[in-house]
């Protein structure tokens, strides 16, 4: 070091050291960039606060930078932007849909169909815009199953479904769907960028929503609204946000994606079945009112019908009842009031009510008595008047009555007495009534009729036959008295018999002798001789041998019918 250098060192040593240090920092890129890095954020912030010059300066280089980066690694940018782009696109779609709904609203507003007016009323009741309600009504759907499938290997990451859904092996379904997807992509999309997004199968629609690492496949029953796809996209984005890396690396270990199915369950909440519920709630009150009205109408209708039936039944019973002449039937609810005439022998009002199936308390009557000429009442009255026994039948004939059957002689005589007194005012034929007394008398007569009494010799009865004849005479006398009481008479014939020994003349005399001998005994026993006739039975052929069985007499009794005077109705 020379003197000058030493002097400089003494005078400017500290400054030179600082200058060297600065020179070194400026010349070394590493230190310079470190310095700039320290102040750059603050510098940018200040510059941005001062004005838009910095933005203008950076716009072009940053733009070029981004463009170049996206060209070089588009997938990385797409993956990074996926969670951002979804909501942005969805927002745009919702905006467009709202406009579309409004357009429908305006279209339907101008239509006055019954359904349009009904929907308008329902929308007003529910407090929702009419356009939304129209969409809701026309789109009914439900997500039945949701599959989350790895795009890398087609393995099933998660699967949820409603209980009622019929499920095949979900792993196989997932793999097969991936195979079909690959087949479609390789076969019909030259640049392999195509995707299978929708498939229709009868009542079901299959929607696939694609994410960077997984695709969400939903099996939907019915017609889903387009907006559902953005809802499903949101769910898939959320799944990627939480499980994206795990899904990307998924190789079949189900434990590594635990919890993903909870996210998938959100898909099953998408359904639209509300309109039916609303409909039923609205009609409930009206339905109850209608039911009450119908029940009331039914009650009154049935009651009215029953009343009419009851009235008819009562009228029919009254018409069929002899001796009752009703001029007016009044009905007040279930109560009946009758006005008219009633023969005392006619059925009572209680009996009539019972025959019509009505409580007797329901019927009151204001009836005046009269004498009915209804044949049945006339018979009833006659029977009552004559105190007719049940063995007697009375029937109408022309303008009179025929009495038949059996009765005691006393009853018959009584009736004859009344007939003679003209108590009936109509012809009555009594001839057909048999007297029970006469019948008995006839039986008694038959019992002791045609009895033989034998003779010991020509005109002397055997002693025991004589005793028997006396007893017989006593019985005959008793019967004769009974016949007299009935205005009838018993004729007694005593026939004398002989055998064929002897001449006819001799035998005739002998027979007469025998009958006279017997008649004497009868007369002596108190029998009127006028009632007795004589006869003989004598053989007329050749002389024969004596026959003791023909030495007899036979007492024959004949009961004559009583003779009554005939009665005529006084004019």
């Amino acid at each position, binding site marked *: 070091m020379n003197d000058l250098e030493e002097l400089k060192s003494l005078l400017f040593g500290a400054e030179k050291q600082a200058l060297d240090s600065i020179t070194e920092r400026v010349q070394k890129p590493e230190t310079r960039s470190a310095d700039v890095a320290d102040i750059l954020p603050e510098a940018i912030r200040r510059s941005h606060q001062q004005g838009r010059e910095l933005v203008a300066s950076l716009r072009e280089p940053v733009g070029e930078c981004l463009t170049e980066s996206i060209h070089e690694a588009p997938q990385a940018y797409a993956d990074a932007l996926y969670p951002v782009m979804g909501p942005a696109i969805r927002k745009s779609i919702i905006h467009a849909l709202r406009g579309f709904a409004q357009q429908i609203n305006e279209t339907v507003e101008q239509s006055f169909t019954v359904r349009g007016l009904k929907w308008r009323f329902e929308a007003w009741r529910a407090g929702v815009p009419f356009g939304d309600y129209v969409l809701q009504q026309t789109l009914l759907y439900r997500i039945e199953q949701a599959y989350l499938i790895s795009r890398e290997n*087609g*393995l099933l990451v998660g699967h949820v479904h409603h209980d009622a859904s019929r499920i095949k*092996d979900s*792993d*196989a379904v997932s*793999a097969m769907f991936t*195979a079909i997807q690959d087949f479609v992509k*390789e076969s019909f999309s030259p640049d392999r960028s195509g995707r299978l997004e929708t498939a229709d199968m009868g009542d079901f629609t299959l929607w696939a929503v694609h994410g960077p690492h997984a695709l969400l496949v939903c099996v939907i029953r019915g017609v889903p609204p387009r907006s559902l796809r953005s809802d499903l996209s949101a769910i898939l984005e959320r799944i990627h946000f939480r499980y994206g890396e795990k899904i990307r690396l998924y190789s079949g270990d*189900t434990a590594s994606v635990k919890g993903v199915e909870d996210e998938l369950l959100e898909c099953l909440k998408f359904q639209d079945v509300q309109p039916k519920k609303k409909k039923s709630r609205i009609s409930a009150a009206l339905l109850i009112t209608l039911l009450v009205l119908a029940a009331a109408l039914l009650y009154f209708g049935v009651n009215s019908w029953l009343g009419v039936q009851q009235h008819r039944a009562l009228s029919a019973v009254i018409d069929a009842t002899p001796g009752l002449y009703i001029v007016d039937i009044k009905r007040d609810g279930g109560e009946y009031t009758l006005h008219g005439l009633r023969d005392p022998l006619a059925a009572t009002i209680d009996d009539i009510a019972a025959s019509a199936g009505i409580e007797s308390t329901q019927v009151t009557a204001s009836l005046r008595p009269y004498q009915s000429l209804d044949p049945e009442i006339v018979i009833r009255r006659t029977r009552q008047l004559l105190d007719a026994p049940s063995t007697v039948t009375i029937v109408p004939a022309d303008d009179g009555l025929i009495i038949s059957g059996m009765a005691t002689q006393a009853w018959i005589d009584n009736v004859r007495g009344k007939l003679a007194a003209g108590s009936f005012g109509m012809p009555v034929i009594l001839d057909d009534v048999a007297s029970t007394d006469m019948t008995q008398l006839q039986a008694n007569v038959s019992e002791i009729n045609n009895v033989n009494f034998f003779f010991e010799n020509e005109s002397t009865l055997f002693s025991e036959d004589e005793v028997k004849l006396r007893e017989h005479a006593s019985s005959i006398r008793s019967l004769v008295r009974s016949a007299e009481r009935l205005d009838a008479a018993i004729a007694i014939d005593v026939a004398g018999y002989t055998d064929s020994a002897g001449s006819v003349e001799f035998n005739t005399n002998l027979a007469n002798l025998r009958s006279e001998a017997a008649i004497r005994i009868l007369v002596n026993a108190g029998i009127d001789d006028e009632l007795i006739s004589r006869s003989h039975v004598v053989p007329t052929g050749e002389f024969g041998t004596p026959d003791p069985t023909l030495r007899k007499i036979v007492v024959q009794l004949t009961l004559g019918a009583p003779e009554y005077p005939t009665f005529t109705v006084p004019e």
Partner: protein
Amino acid sequence: MTLLNSKICILGDFAVGKTSTVERFVNNHFSDKYLTTIGVKVDTKEIQLTEYVKLKLIIWDIAGTDRFGPVELAYLRGASGYILVADGTRAKTVAAALDLKSQAEERYGELPYVFLLNKSDLQHSWDVSDQRLDELSQSLTNVFVTSAKSGDKVDEAISTLGEMIADRESQ
């Protein structure tokens, strides 16, 4: 209980017995017509690896071919392993199976596999010499002489593949 799912493919030339091989022990879910329409049919099979680990194989039965087209290659994507099947009564199908193996490895790298020389029940028309079989056994890791008809060695081969896949996944 741990449940693992793995996609495997079954590859081989026409009529070597691929479908017959899997049909003996899998749960059929789809009609065979898929093989002739879209060229693949999926079946599943569960294997109990250990007391606590169950492996569900999702088996892609790919329609027979001696050379993959783009569609078939796409079906192999994401597979954890594959079953190569050749017909012992047609020696050329062995070469076809090896060719398919090369194609698969070229596209998707090395994967666990088993090689099934099928139709061992047809010994009278057997077309693969013992020497050729020895060569195969030396060059390939797992060679099984099987019969889809009797089921001989099929279960063993599939189980071996399942264990290989599980080992690989656990590494």
